[in-house]
C-alpha cells in the first residue's frame, strides 16, 4: 500500500505541520494517521476525518509549540529562554505574518479613499458592476474586485475604498511570500549542519528584504490604488515561493503537486496581467538545477525552453486557442451554415476531449512527467477560463463595454489586443522609413445577420528595401521631433545603427528604466514628470521651502548598496539560486524594456511596469544581512550580537524608505480626482452629451456615474473611441437615464471598414456645404463623393442653418446672448480630413436640432477636426455648442454666467483642496489650474456684464477653495490678479502679486544657481514673475512692479551670463 491509494487526514496533517516543531512531527503524524485509519474502519471516513482534525487542533498549546529538541532541553528551562529558541517553523510563520501585518497596516493607512487617476477609476467602475474594460481586460481582478466592493455595505461612495483595499491586501500577501522566499533562499546559503544555527539570521534577512520591498516607491504606489499591478505582483510572489517549496519537497509526487499549483496560478494570473509569465525562466532554472546535472548546454536549453513556454502561453493559449476557435466558428457558420457559436462549441468539446485523452493515457501508462505537464497545461486553461466573465457580461450590453467582445470573432480581437499597434522588435522600420504601400493580410470578420462578414482587412505598412533595419529603436513616426532633438538629427536625416543603440542605452535603458530603479533604491528628486533620481550631489542641498517636494526622498543609496552586497554574496555562495533571482531581475526589468520599445515621451512615468525586477532586488537587500553577519563575525565573538548587529544595519534601509516615502505615498483625504469628474458632469444640462478627449480623462466620469450614481442622465462620449463602430452602436441604446442618440446617417455608414472611416478633403470648388445636406448625401451613397470606396469632404467649410425663432422658443440660448445668434454656423475644417468621430459629432449637432445639449471639454475641443471654438459657451467646466458666435478676439469663449456661477459656486465640490496636509501630485495641480482658469473666465465675463460684485465673489471663492499655500500658484494667477484689480479688490491683488513675485524670484534664482539647464519649472516661474509684473504696472502699482521688474532683469542677466559661459 503506498501513500497514493491510502486515505490520509490531509487537513489534520496540514494543521500539525503548521503547529508542531519538525522534531516532533514524524511521531505525531504517524500516530495521528494510525489512529485515523483505525477510526476509519470503525466509524467511517467522515467521523474519522472530523475527529482527527479536532484532535490536531488540540496540539496548539505551549508545551508543543515551544518544545525544543531533547538534547537542548535541560540547558535552559525558563519560559523566556524557550520563547527565544522556540521552534523555527512557528517563529518563521509568526515573523512572516508580522511583516504582513506591518505592510497591510501601512497600506491601509495610506490607502486612496476614492478612485485614483488613470485606469483605476475604470477598473473600479467595471469591477463594481462587472463590466468590460479596455483590452485585454482583467476578468479575475474584476470579479475579486466585485467581491471586495461588498465591503462598502451599500454605501456607493465607499466602493472605491473597498476595491483599493484589495490591492492593499494583495500587496501585503506579496510581502508575506517575499519574506518566506528570502528565508528559504537564505537557508541555502549555509552548510547543511549550520542551517539550524543560522535560523535567526535567515529570518532577519527575510525581514529586511521584505520590508524594503514593502516600502519601495513603485510597489507602495501600486499597493494603494485599484490597479492590476498589486495583484499581479502577488501572483508572481506566490509562484516563486511555490517553486522554492517544490524545490524543498523531497517526495516526488508531492512535489509535482506544487508544479500543478504553479501552473494554475499562472493560468489565473492571465486574468489579471500577463506580466506574471516572465517569472517562468527563473522557475525553469530552479527546476533544471534540481533535476539535472548542470552543464552550459543544459542551462541554455532550459532558458530557451522557458522562453518557449512564455510564447506558448502568451501566444498559443491566450491568443492561439481563441484564434483556432475563430477558424472553427467561421467554418461552421459561414461554410456549413450552422448557428452562431456552433464552431466554438465544437472546438471546446474537441479540445476538452483531447485534454482528457492525454491525461487518461498518461495516467494509465504511468508516465508521470507527461501526466504532470498535461495536468499543468489543463490548469493553465482552467485559470484562463476567468475570461468567460468578459464574454458573458459583454452580451448583457453593459454600459461600459469596450470593443464589445460579444461573439467569437470580436473576442479573438479583444484578446489579441488588436487595437494597439505593436512596436517592431528585432527587424523593422525607423521613424524616417517611407511607406511605399500596404500589405493586406487576413480579413477582419464581424457578425452579420446569419454569417460573419468581412469588414476590412488587417494591413501592415510596406517599406522600400533597405528602409528597414535590425533592432529598430527609433521607430515611432509620431515622435520624430523628440528623436531629432534627442539625437541632434537634421530634417530628413536617417538615424544610424549607432544612434539607434545609443537611444536604446541612454533613453530606454537609462532614463526610462535605470532612473526608476534608482528612484526605488537610491532616492528620488521629486514628483515632476521626468524627475531625476537623487544623486549624491543633491543629498545635502538646501532646497527653498517653496520648492520643497514631498516626493523628494533621500535613501542615501543605502538600499542600493545593501542590494549590491547581497547580490555579490549570493553569487559567490549559491550560484544556482542567484542566477534564478538574477533572471527574475532581468526578465521583469531590462527584457521588458527591449520588448516594449518605448517611444521618447510617455504621458506618465512608467515605473510600475518594472515592479517585478525590484522584487528580485529586494531579495538581495535581504541577503545582505547574511553577508554583513559574516563580516561582523570576524570581529565579534558573541553570535547573538552579530545577528542583532547585521539586522540593525539592514533595517536602516526599510526604515529610511518608510520615513522618507510616507508623506508622498499617503493618499488619504484626497478627493479631487473624483470631485473634478463630478464637477464636469454637473456642468451639463439634463440629458447632455459630453464629448471628452482621451479615455484616461473620461474614466473618472465613468467612475462617478457607474459607482456613485452621479448624473447618469449625461452621456460622456470619448472622442477617440467614437471612430469605432461598436462604440457608436452603443450610443443608440439607453444608458441609465440617458436616452438613445438619434442620427441621420445609417448604422452601415458608421460600420467598421465602411466608406466613412476617414474622409479626405477634395477640392470640389465649393465655398461651403450645408452639413445636413452633406450628411443626407452620404446616407444616399451619393456617387460623386466616393473615391475608392471612401467618401470625401467636398469643402473646407461646413455650415449648419439656424432657425432663430425656433432656437429662441426652445430657450437654449441665454437671454443676454440672443443677439449673438447666427443665421448659420460655419465650422471650418482644421486640416484636410474628417474622422468618423467628427462625422458623428456633426450628425448629432444637426440631427438633434438643439433639443439635447451637446458639450465638449478642453481636450476634446482641441481634438475635433472641426473648429467649434467660436460657438462654444462655457457652462461651469464644460463648453456647450450653441448657435451663437463669439466675435471678440480678446475673449477665448462666451460664458453663460448664470449657469456657470450657480454651478461653480453652489454645486461643485472642492474637497480638501484647502488642506495643506494632503499630498497633491501634478495630475491634481493641472486639474486645479484648469479649475482656477475657469473661475478667471467666469469673473471676466461677469465684469464684462458689469456685475463686479459677483465677479469679486467668484474670485475670492476660488482663492479660498484652492489657496496657493496648498496647490502652488500657477500661470493662471496673473489673470486672477488682473481681475482682482478690475473687481476693486486691490488689497488682495497686491497681496497675491507680492507672494507670487517673491516665490518666483526665490525659485528662479535657486534654479539658475543650481543647474545650467533651463527647466520647465524655471521658465514657468519667470513667466509668472513677468506676467504679474505687467499686471501690476498696468494697475499703477509702480513701486512693486518696478521692484519685481528689476529682479526679473537681474535673473535674466544671470541666466545669460551662465548661458554665455557654457
Amino acid at each position, binding site marked *: *500500500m*503506498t*501513500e497514493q491509494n*491510502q486515505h*490520509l487526514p490531509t487537513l489534520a496533517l496540514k494543521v500539525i505541520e503548521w503547529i508542531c516543531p519538525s522534531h*516532533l512531527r*514524524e*511521531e*505525531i*503524524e*504517524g*500516530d*495521528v*494517521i*494510525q*489512529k485515523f*485509519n*483505525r477510526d476509519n474502519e470503525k466509524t467511517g471516513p467522515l467521523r474519522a476525518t472530523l475527529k482527527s482534525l479536532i*484532535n*490536531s487542533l*488540540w*496540539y496548539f*498549546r505551549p*508545551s*508543543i509549540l515551544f*518544545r525544543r529538541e*531533547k538534547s537542548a*532541553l535541560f540547558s535552559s528551562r525558563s519560559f523566556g529562554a524557550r520563547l527565544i529558541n522556540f521552534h523555527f517553523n512557528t517563529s518563521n510563520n509568526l515573523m512572516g505574518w508580522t511583516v504582513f501585518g506591518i505592510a497591510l497596516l501601512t497600506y491601509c493607512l495610506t490607502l486612496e479613499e476614492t478612485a485614483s487617476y488613470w485606469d483605476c477609476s475604470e477598473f473600479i467602475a467595471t469591477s463594481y458592476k462587472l463590466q468590460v474594460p479596455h483590452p485585454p481586460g482583467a476578468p479575475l481582478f474584476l470579479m475579486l474586485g466585485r467581491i471586495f466592493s461588498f465591503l462598502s455595505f451599500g454605501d456607493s461612495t465607499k466602493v472605491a475604498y473597498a476595491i483599493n483595499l484589495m490591492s492593499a491586501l494583495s500587496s501585503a500577501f506579496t510581502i508575506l511570500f517575499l519574506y518566506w522566499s528570502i528565508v528559504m533562499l537564505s537557508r541555502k546559503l549555509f552548510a547543511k549542519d549550520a542551517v539550524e544555527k543560522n535560523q535567526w539570521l535567515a529570518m532577519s534577512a527575510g525581514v529586511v528584504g521584505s520590508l524594503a520591498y514593502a516600502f519601495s516607491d513603485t510597489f507602495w504606489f501600486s499597493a494603494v490604488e485599484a490597479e492590476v499591478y498589486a495583484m499581479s505582483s502577488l501572483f508572481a510572489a506566490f509562484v516563486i515561493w511555490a517553486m522554492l517549496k517544490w524545490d524543498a519537497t523531497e517526495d516526488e509526487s508531492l512535489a509535482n503537486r506544487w508544479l500543478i499549483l504553479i501552473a494554475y496560478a499562472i493560468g489565473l494570473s492571465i486574468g489579471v496581467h500577463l506580466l506574471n509569465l516572465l517569472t517562468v525562466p527563473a522557475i525553469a532554472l530552479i527546476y533544471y538545477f534540481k533535476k539535472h546535472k548542470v552543464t552550459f548546454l543544459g542551462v541554455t536549453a532550459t532558458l530557451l525552453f522557458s522562453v518557449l513556454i512564455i510564447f506558448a502561453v502568451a501566444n498559443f493559449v491566450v491568443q492561439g486557442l481563441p484564434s483556432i476557435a475563430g477558424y472553427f466558428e467561421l467554418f461552421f457558420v459561414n461554410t456549413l451554415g450552422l448557428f452562431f457559436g456552433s464552431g466554438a462549441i465544437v472546438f471546446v468539446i474537441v479540445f476538452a476531449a483531447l485534454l482528457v485523452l492525454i491525461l487518461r493515457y498518461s495516467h494509465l501508462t504511468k508516465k508521470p512527467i507527461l501526466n504532470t505537464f498535461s495536468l499543468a497545461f489543463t490548469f493553465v486553461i482552467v485559470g484562463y477560463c476567468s475570461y468567460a466573465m468578459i464574454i458573458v457580461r459583454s452580451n448583457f450590453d453593459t454600459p461600459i463595454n469596450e470593443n464589445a467582445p460579444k461573439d467569437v470573432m470580436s473576442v479573438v480581437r479583444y484578446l489579441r489586443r488588436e487595437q494597439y499597434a505593436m512596436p517592431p522588435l528585432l527587424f523593422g522600420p525607423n521613424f524616417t522609413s517611407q511607406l511605399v504601400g500596404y500589405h493586406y493580410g487576413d480579413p477582419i470578420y464581424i457578425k452579420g445577420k446569419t454569417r460573419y462578414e468581412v469588414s476590412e482587412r488587417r494591413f501592415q505598412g510596406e517599406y522600400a528595401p533597405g528602409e528597414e533595419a535590425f533592432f529598430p529603436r527609433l521607430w515611432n513616426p509620431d515622435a520624430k521631433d523628440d528623436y531629432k532633438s534627442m539625437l541632434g538629427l537634421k530634417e530628413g536625416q536617417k538615424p544610424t545603427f549607432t544612434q539607434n543603440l545609443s537611444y536604446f542605452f541612454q533613453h530606454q535603458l537609462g532614463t526610462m528604466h535605470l532612473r526608476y530603479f534608482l528612484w526605488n533604491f537610491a532616492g528620488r528628486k521629486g514628483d515632476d514628470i521626468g524627475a531625476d533620481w537623487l544623486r549624491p550631489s543633491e543629498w545635502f542641498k538646501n532646497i527653498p521651502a517653496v520648492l520643497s517636494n514631498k516626493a523628494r526622498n533621500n535613501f542615501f543609496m543605502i538600499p542600493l548598496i545593501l542590494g549590491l552586497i547581497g547580490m555579490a554574496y549570493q553569487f559567490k555562495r549559491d550560484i544556482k539560486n542567484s542566477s534564478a533571482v538574477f533572471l527574475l531581475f532581468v526578465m521583469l526589468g531590462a527584457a521588458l524594456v527591449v520588448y516594449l520599445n518605448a517611444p521618447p515621451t510617455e504621458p506618465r512615468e512608467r515605473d510600475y511596469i518594472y515592479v517585478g525586477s525590484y522584487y528580485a532586488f529586494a531579495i538581495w537587500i535581504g541577503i545582505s544581512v547574511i553577508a554583513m553577519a559574516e563580516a561582523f563575525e570576524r570581529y565579534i565573538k558573541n553570535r547573538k550580537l552579530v545577528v542583532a548587529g547585521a539586522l540593525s544595519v539592514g533595517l536602516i534601509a526599510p526604515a529610511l524608505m518608510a520615513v522618507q516615502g510616507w508623506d508622498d505615498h499617503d493618499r488619504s483625504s484626497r478627493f479631487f480626482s473624483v470631485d473634478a469628474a463630478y464637477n464636469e458632469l454637473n456642468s451639463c444640462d439634463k440629458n447632455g452629451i459630453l464629448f471628452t478627449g482621451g479615455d484616461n480623462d473620461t474614466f473618472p466620469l465613468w467612475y462617478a456615474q457607474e459607482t456613485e450614481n452621479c448624473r447618469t442622465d449625461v452621456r460622456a462620449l470619448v472622442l477617440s473611441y467614437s471612430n469605432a463602430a461598436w462604440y457608436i452602436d452603443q450610443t443608440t441604446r439607453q444608458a441609465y437615464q440617458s436616452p438613445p442618440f438619434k442620427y441621420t446617417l445609417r448604422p452601415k455608414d458608421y460600420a467598421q471598414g465602411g466608406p466613412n472611416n476617414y474622409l479626405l478633403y477634395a477640392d470640389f470648388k465649393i465655398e461651403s456645404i450645408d452639413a445636413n445636406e452633406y450628411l443626407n448625401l452620404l446616407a444616399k451613397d451619393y456617387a460623386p463623393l466616393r473615391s475608392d470606396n471612401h467618401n470625401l469632404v467636398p469643402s473646407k467649410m461646413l455650415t449648419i442653418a439656424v432657425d432663430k425663432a425656433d432656437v429662441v422658443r426652445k430657450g437654449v440660448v441665454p437671454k443676454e446672448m440672443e443677439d449673438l445668434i447666427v443665421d448659420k454656423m460655419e465650422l471650418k475644417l482644421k486640416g484636410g480630413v474628417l474622422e468618423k468621430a467628427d462625422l458623428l459629432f456633426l450628425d448629432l449637432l444637426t440631427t438633434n436640432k438643439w433639443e439635447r445639449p451637446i458639450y465638449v471639454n478642453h481636450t476634446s475641443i482641441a481634438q475635433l477636426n472641426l473648429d467649434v471654438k467660436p460657438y462654444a459657451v462655457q457652462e461651469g467646466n464644460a463648453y456647450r455648442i450653441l448657435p451663437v458666435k463669439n466675435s471678440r478676439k480678446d475673449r477665448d469663449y462666451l460664458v453663460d454666467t448664470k449657469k456657470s456661477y450657480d454651478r461653480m459656486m453652489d454645486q461643485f465640490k472642492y474637497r480638501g483642496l484647502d488642506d495643506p496636509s494632503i499630498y497633491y501630485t501634478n495630475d491634481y495641480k493641472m486639474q486645479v489650474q484648469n479649475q482656477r482658469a475657469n473661475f478667471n473666465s467666469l469673473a471676466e465675463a461677469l465684469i464684462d456684464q458689469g456685475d463686479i460684485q459677483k465677479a469679486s465673489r467668484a474670485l475670492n471663492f476660488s482663492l479660498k477653495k484652492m489657496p496657493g499655500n496648498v496647490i502652488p500658484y500657477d500661470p493662471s494667477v496673473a489673470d486672477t490678479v488682473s481681475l482682482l484689480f478690475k473687481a476693486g479688490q486691490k488689497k488682495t491683488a497686491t497681496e497675491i502679486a507680492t507672494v507670487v513675485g517673491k516665490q518666483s524670484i526665490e525659485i528662479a534664482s535657486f534654479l539658475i544657481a543650481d543647474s545650467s539647464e533651463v527647466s520647465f519649472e524655471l521658465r514657468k516661474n519667470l513667466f509668472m514673475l513677468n506676467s504679474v509684473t505687467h499686471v501690476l504696472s498696468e494697475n499703477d502699482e509702480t513701486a512693486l512692479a518696478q521692484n519685481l521688474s528689476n529682479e526679473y532683469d537681474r535673473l535674466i542677466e544671470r541666466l545669460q551670463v551662465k548661458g554665455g559661459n557654457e
Partner: protein
Amino acid sequence: MAKEYLGEFEELILTLVAALQEDAYGAAIAEELEKRVKREANLSAIHVTLYRLEDKGYIKSSFGGSTNERGGRRKRIYTITNAGMAMLKFMKESRIELWKLVPQLKIVGV
C-alpha cells in the same frame, strides 16, 4: 528540586508505557487506554503527557519502525527508566498503604 508527584493521567500513561514495553507509542497507548480503562483521550493529550514524563526523566524514547498504516512515519517508542519504575512502585505502595486505612466495610445489601 522538590520531590515530584504524578498526576492521575500521568500515572496512567506511565503505567501503560511500562506495560506495553516495546510497543509503547502514542497511538498504541491511546488504543490500550480505550480498551482497558474505557477512556477516550485525545492523542494530543497523550503526547503532551509523554513529553512531560520524558522531561521529568521517567521515560525515554527512541525511533522505531514505520508502517504503511502510519503513512510511512516512524513510531517513537517509549521505555520506562529506572526513575520511572521507582516512581511507579512508590505510587503503587503508597496507594496500597492508603487503601489499608479504609475500613473494610461490606457493601450494604450484599
